[in-house]
């Protein structure tokens, strides 16, 4: 019977290798070690302070171009990176990315008697103009803030502060 079985299903038994339970257990432990190492690596990477990223400075506008309570659209560092320069009610200049951190809708500078914020009309999200933190709505992260430099009567963009966790 066995001879007939081997004739009809010729398997090279000498070359075949069964995985024993011990080998499987060893392999499982090895894979467990690999996963632990991977988790530690991800945790270590997430703890690296991201800080800020510098780019080639770009001139945005002159100080006189913006009055308090107004804003200006510009692109930095690439043409596709939409940004917003804001001259706040108190005269300070801040700049943020225009892309909402929820689904990348362009945000607007909303200013009124009792309100001053970045507003996303798509899903009613809002960010603070102080530091870009989420004030309301579905955005999961603060909106990235740009680094500005005033050189004489010109305002230059010099980099981006990498966002912190919400």
């Amino acid at each position, binding site marked *: 019977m066995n001879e007939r079985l081997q004739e009809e299903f010729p398997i090279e038994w000498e070359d075949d290798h069964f995985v024993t*339970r*011990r080998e499987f*257990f060893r392999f*499982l*432990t090895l894979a467990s070690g690999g*996963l*632990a190492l991977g*988790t530690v690596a*991800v*945790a270590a990477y997430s703890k690296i302070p991201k800080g800020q990223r510098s780019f080639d400075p770009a001139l945005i506008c002159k100080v006189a171009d913006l009055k308090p309570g107004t804003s200006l659209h510009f692109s930095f560092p690439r043409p596709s990176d939409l940004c917003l320069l804001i001259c706040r009610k108190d005269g300070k200049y801040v700049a943020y990315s225009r892309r909402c951190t929820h689904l990348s809708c362009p945000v607007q500078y909303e200013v009124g008697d009792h309100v001053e914020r970045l507003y996303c009309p798509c899903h009613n999200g809002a960010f603070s103009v102080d530091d870009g933190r989420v004030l309301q709505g579905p955005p999961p992260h603060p909106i990235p803030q740009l680094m500005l430099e005033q050189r004489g009567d010109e305002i230059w963009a010099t980099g981006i502060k990498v966002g912190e966790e919400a």
Partner: protein
Amino acid sequence: MNTPEFYRRRQKAIVFLGLMLFALILFFIQIWLFVMTLENMLAGRTAMAVPGAIASLALFATNLWMLRGVQRLMKIN
């Protein structure tokens, strides 16, 4: 046929199988921990990264300890 050796071997096989299944469960928990840590890291949430890594290391230590126990078990006649 049913010698004490026969029962000892059968018991060892059952213990081995139980340990292996438990190790498999811990392995799946480790996969979940890894995926959760990675997802949170990509979303900018880093609060659970270190606790997740510690838990994963603890599970690996447990698996290693069980493997050593199994090897000792196999050596006992």
